[in-house]
């Protein structure tokens, strides 16, 4: 019947294709007019990059349909698995993502690993455009002898562990030592230090996992050193997180004034954010706290400190060779100034005893699929303004596009730009013309491969379950950490 209608329409000259009958298909009439054809857009990754890109496309195109694929059974990426449990306000962006996912032209499909369950080529066949927003799931390795010893962990795995990332639940970090060393001086390093040192009662009402809470309750860690190769002017963390450390209850800061000699003069001309950060470090290292603060510090049972100009050369084993017992550090000096300053060894060495080593040197993206270009040196997908090089119709946004740095707002801006680029290309006729089947085609493939996608309303059931479990223990949620359990709860 619908076919007959379309025959009478003035634009029946357009080639007819076999209509798809999925319930989300727009009316056939629309499919036969390029004017009103629904662009089918695919986004891979449901963290901030994926959702903000989807949001932009949906907002600025009245017809486009966006499908968001996610490897985990649950959405939101690092907002759920990266942001620290004691930073719940940062997770408020989940509300806007939820609105997007619920919109009629958007669908979320979790538990689908692109590159394994479905290839990028198959996605490009089914959609007019594919946006890769899958972030950075690897960590930058230390590359030193002793890295394999028990007691050496990546900060990324530790964060995944306390945040309920399924693949890190078996981590079982040993917190029976009194000193931990974190290598790297970014916000992740501060997050890890803060979670290790925060009085555990402050974590009890957060969404930290039950297992992590119990392990931290037993922790013997009293001192955490956060070690960087360069100096105070090159720290990668931001001031808000530093301020939080300085004010951390039950702890005192350990900074060596010698690291700050001459800093006052060097910061005169630096941009404001760097200047304020350096000034706060300087004040903390060399200033006299008021009496109340001095008392608080004197009483504090735990401590954290920053060590500068130290580059890790080796993880030292315990006498029986069974575990990490320290880090051998090369003393460095700086060549050059500012962000571009390089650390060069002086020849001196220093050993720092500890029982736990956490490497926090940055994240790294992985290539998702052999058909997608990848720059192993930079760890990103080669692109120009979000258009993947030599791959028309393929885009990227977020960390896999620019590298794994920046906060949510940075990724938001970047994702809007990719969305804009995509829509410009659509407008300019640079994307494949003619209708595409979108999810209908992919669903058939997944079905034949025994993959069971989790819809957004499925997630909302899991969400309700987490919130309900959390309520009985005074937490905003008790996270589900076992994908098998999640699928069982959904009837599989």
């Amino acid at each position: 019947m619908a076919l007959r209608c379309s025959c009478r329409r003035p634009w029946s000259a357009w080639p007819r294709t076999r209509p798809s009958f999925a319930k989300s298909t727009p009316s056939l009439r629309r499919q036969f007019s390029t004017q009103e054809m629904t662009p089918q857009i695919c986004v891979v990754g449901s963290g901030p990059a994926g959702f903000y890109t989807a949001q932009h496309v949906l907002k600025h195109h009245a017809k486009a349909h966006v499908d968001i694929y996610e490897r985990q059974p649950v959405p939101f990426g690092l907002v759920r698995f990266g942001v620290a449990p004691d930073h719940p306000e940062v997770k408020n962006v989940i509300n806007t993502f939820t609105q997007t996912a619920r919109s009629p032209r958007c669908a979320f499909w979790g538990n689908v690993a692109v590159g394994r369950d479905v290839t990028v080529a198959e996605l490009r066949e089914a959609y007019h455009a594919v946006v890769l927003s899958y972030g950075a799931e690897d960590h930058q390795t230390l590359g030193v002898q002793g890295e394999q010893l028990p007691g050496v962990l990546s900060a990324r795995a530790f964060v995944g562990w306390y945040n309920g990332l399924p693949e890190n639940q078996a981590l079982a970090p040993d917190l029976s030592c009194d000193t931990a060393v974190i290598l790297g001086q970014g916000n992740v390093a501060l997050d890890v230090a803060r979670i290790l040192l925060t009085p555990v009662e402050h974590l009890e009402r957060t969404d930290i996992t039950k297992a992590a809470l119990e392990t931290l309750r037993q922790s013997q860690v009293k001192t955490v050193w956060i070690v960087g190769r360069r100096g105070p002017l090159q720290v990668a963390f931001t001031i808000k997180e530093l301020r939080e450390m300085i004010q951390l209850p039950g702890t005192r800061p350990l900074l060596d004034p010698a690291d700050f000699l001459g800093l006052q003069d060097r910061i005169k001309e630096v941009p404001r954010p760097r200047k304020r950060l350096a000034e706060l470090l300087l004040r903390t290292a060399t200033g006299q706290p008021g009496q109340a603060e001095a008392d608080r510090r004197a009483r504090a049972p735990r401590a954290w400190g920053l060590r500068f100009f130290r580059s890790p050369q080796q993880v030292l084993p315990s006498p029986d060779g069974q575990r990490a017992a320290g880090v051998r550090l090369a003393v460095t000096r700086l060549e050059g100034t500012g962000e571009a300053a390089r650390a060069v060894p002086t020849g001196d060495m220093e050993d720092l005893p500890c029982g736990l080593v956490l490497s926090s040197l940055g994240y790294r993206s992985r290539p998702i699929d052999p058909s997608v270009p990848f720059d192993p040196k930079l760890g990103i997908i080669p692109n120009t303004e979000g258009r993947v090089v030599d791959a028309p119709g393929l885009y990227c946004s977020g960390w896999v596009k620019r590298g794994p740095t920046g906060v949510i707002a940075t990724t938001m801006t970047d994702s809007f730009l990719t969305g804009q680029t995509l829509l410009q290309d659509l407008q300019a006729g640079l994307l494949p013309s003619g209708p595409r089947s979108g999810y209908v085609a992919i669903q058939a493939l997944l079905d034949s491969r025994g993959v069971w996608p989790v819809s957004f309303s499925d997630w909302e059931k899991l969400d309700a379950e987490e919130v309900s479990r959390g309520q009985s223990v005074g937490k905003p949620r008790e996270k589900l950490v076992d994908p098998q359990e999640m699928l069982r709860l959904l009837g599989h």
Partner: protein
Amino acid sequence: MAAAGCTRLLRAVSAPLGGPARRWLLLAGSRAGAGGLPGSRGPGSSAEAGLGGGRAGARRPLSQSAPARSSSEDKVTVNFINRDGETLTAKGKVGDSLLDVVIENNLDIDGFGACEGTLACSTCHLIFEEHIYDKLQPVTDEENDMLDLAYGLTDRLLSCVAHWNLVLYFWVIDEYFVDTLTKPRPAFHTSLNQGEFD
């Protein structure tokens, strides 16, 4: 008394209205966070600072001591000019934050207010004309910490903590792009026009 909706060209006025400064009313229109997260503010909550996550409240304290106005008719017209030069007009109640105005009027500014008014991002930041800063309470460390992440820093305020006082005239420039690595983007321009008082 206030005639809501009466607007005036900002440029024509360079000094604030005389007379005693008005006291802020209870903060209305706070943003709800996701179901019961600690520190999230429910709709219609009171003047409690209520910023999330246990952070020190960054609401600016009021120093004026004029008698409180209780009229719910006190509305101020705000004009936002977007990067395409279009004007987005909205009204807000005395005591609302400028973030509330954007959100409650559904103003078309992509990505504005990502953290929903909890001082955890910088997507709502505003720039004021020089003389306006003299009228406002000093900016807090916490606010400045978030502003440090915003692009092209000058003297700015985060609108999640900025209020306006009915006696003040603002020319507010809202520039929300937070990308510190790229070149300047056109700013959003916001103008706050006063109703008429006394």
